[in-house]
């Protein structure tokens, strides 16, 4: 066992949906669920790490304190993190490093969101120095614009087809059927995916993840505390690595929210593009490789982006993701199941909760508790995600 591991004592979620209630309610429900799962009393939590939401006013910007107050002040230390889609992992990393530094034994990480309908748009008001405002104003570039640029490039470079992309949705929809926390629990066919309206060519409505309400929480503890604590049966799931890397210059792949890349005229593009470097940093930290994985939970903001992740986390070589999918390797029962939870395809994105939810799913899988979607004999799992402006997000979990 590596010296820099912490234990996942408990995980919990509030089901994803479009409930329209206060995000705090989802976060508290998930937190109580995780504490119950851990067998830990709220009064024992020494550090509360909140993943922030930007769409729910001030309470969302100071989510750690918001959740702590809602559960009844207990005097714990607190932090609140925002890193867009990577907020959850940033909050996990704050808790992990505090535990590893010996400053606390037990930490609670919570993220929750309530989302508006439709495209995610920037905050109101003219902000002409903000790239996120500029891309909407000057180009009309929505989030699906960027997902579609990546998808089209797969098609033109690697020969991917719309049917390949649709099969990702079909796989994830089948996985989510048995997940009680998933928002969408409905099987779909390739024909249904391709018959849905094109939003941003080549991507159809059913290939782009929705925005959802939801909440997720985990209880982390030092390995020493976990050994003393009788609440979990057998050896706990361990966090073996967390990656929060930034890109290396020059970042030559256009991505949200920028309208231009760095220049590769003077410094050549790095051997590993940003998304590859995210998982590589986690593997290097843990001394674990992609060949050791039992499963992966990756951020399928679109069907095509799931295929990019296969390559970015090292499941196959560049350009081979469609073959991996079509051979059935990434379905449950295959060599390396991806998104057994159903992924964002079945959840939709609840931004600050999503990266935490990925860790919840891997934990259930490694404990053998993923009823109806269990990956047999799962021992090692990875989560992978990326936050706007270059926030890497990956967690390696082992048991």
């Amino acid at each position, binding site marked *: 066992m590596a010296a820099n591991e912490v234990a996942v004592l408990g995980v919990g979620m509030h089901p994803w949906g479009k409930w329209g209630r206060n995000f705090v309610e989802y976060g508290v429900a998930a937190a109580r669920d995780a504490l119950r799962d851990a067998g830990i009393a709220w009064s024992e939590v020494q550090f509360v790490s909140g993943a922030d939401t930007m769409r729910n006013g001030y309470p969302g910007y100071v989510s750690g304190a918001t959740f702590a107050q809602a559960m009844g002040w207990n005097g714990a230390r607190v932090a609140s993190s925002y890193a867009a889609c990577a907020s959850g992992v940033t909050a996990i990393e704050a808790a992990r490093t505090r535990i590893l530094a010996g400053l606390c034994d037990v930490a609670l990480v919570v993220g929750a969101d309530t989302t508006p309908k439709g495209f995610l748009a920037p905050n109101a008001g003219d902000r002409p120095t903000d790239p996120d405002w500029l891309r909407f104003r000057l*180009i*009309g570039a929505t989030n699906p614009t960027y997902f579609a640029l990546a998808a089209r490039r797969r098609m033109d470079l690697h020969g991917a087809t719309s049917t390949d992309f649709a099969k990702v949705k079909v796989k994830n929809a089948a996985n989510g059927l048995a997940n009680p926390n998933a928002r969408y629990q409905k099987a779909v066919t390739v024909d249904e995916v391709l018959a849905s309206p094109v939003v941003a060519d080549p991507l159809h409505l059913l290939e782009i993840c929705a925005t959802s309400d939801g909440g997720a929480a985990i209880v982390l503890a030092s390995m020493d505390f976990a050994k003393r604590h009788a609440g979990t049966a057998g050896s706990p799931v361990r966090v073996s690595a967390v990656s929060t890397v930034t890109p290396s210059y020059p970042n030559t792949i256009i991505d949200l929210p920028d309208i231009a890349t760095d*220049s*590769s005229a003077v410094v050549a593009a790095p051997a590993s593009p940003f998304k590859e470097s995210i998982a590589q940093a986690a593997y290097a930290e843990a001394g674990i490789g992609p060949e050791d994985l039992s499963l992966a939970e990756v951020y399928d903001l679109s069907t095509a982006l799931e295929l990019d992740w296969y390559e970015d986390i090292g499941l196959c070589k560049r350009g081979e993701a469609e073959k991996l999918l079509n051979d059935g390797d990434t379905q449950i029962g295959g060599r390396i199941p991806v998104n057994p939870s159903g992924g964002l395809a079945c959840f939709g994105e609840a931004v600050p909760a999503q990266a935490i939810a990925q860790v919840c799913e891997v934990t259930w899988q490694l404990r053998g508790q993923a009823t109806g979607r269990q990956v047999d004999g799962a021992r090692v799992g990875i989560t992978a995600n990326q936050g706007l402006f270059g926030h890497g997000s990956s967690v390696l979990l082992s048991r």
Partner: protein
Amino acid sequence: MSTRTRVPALGAEGWFTVDADEPALLGQKCTSCGTYAFPKADYGCPNPGCTGTEFSEVPLSRRGTVWSYTDARYQPPAPYVVPTDEHVPFAIAAVHLADEGLVVMGQMVAGVTVDDLSVGTEVELVVDVLFSDDDTDHLIWKWRPVTSAHSSTGGTSERGDA
């Protein structure tokens, strides 16, 4: 008829030449290391190995090759301003400028659809109206496929990042 005022769209002031015969994006070139930046590097040279803070303003290549492309079938939300009464889908391209090693996004001119584009298609820069109000045209750069009559041969400089 009164003369309409033509100004760069809010946020893009100084980002491209206006009313030139051959419009161009205006980037920066670091006087220390020679790296390019577009839009302008507000906080010093973006090359982390360079401490330069002086830049020369340079016009960027007017032609490039399509790195990838898509379209906007649905009306984008504000702050996008819909230029017509009803949303008309438009194509968007990310264009690789070989000399500068940059990829720059932009709308394609009206009438160009994704069926007209491939990765590697050669395009050139034009300045066009993003939207109009009262007596002002708010301008932006857009990309337009290079017609075969004007195309320089062997112009494909597409480099895979994979």
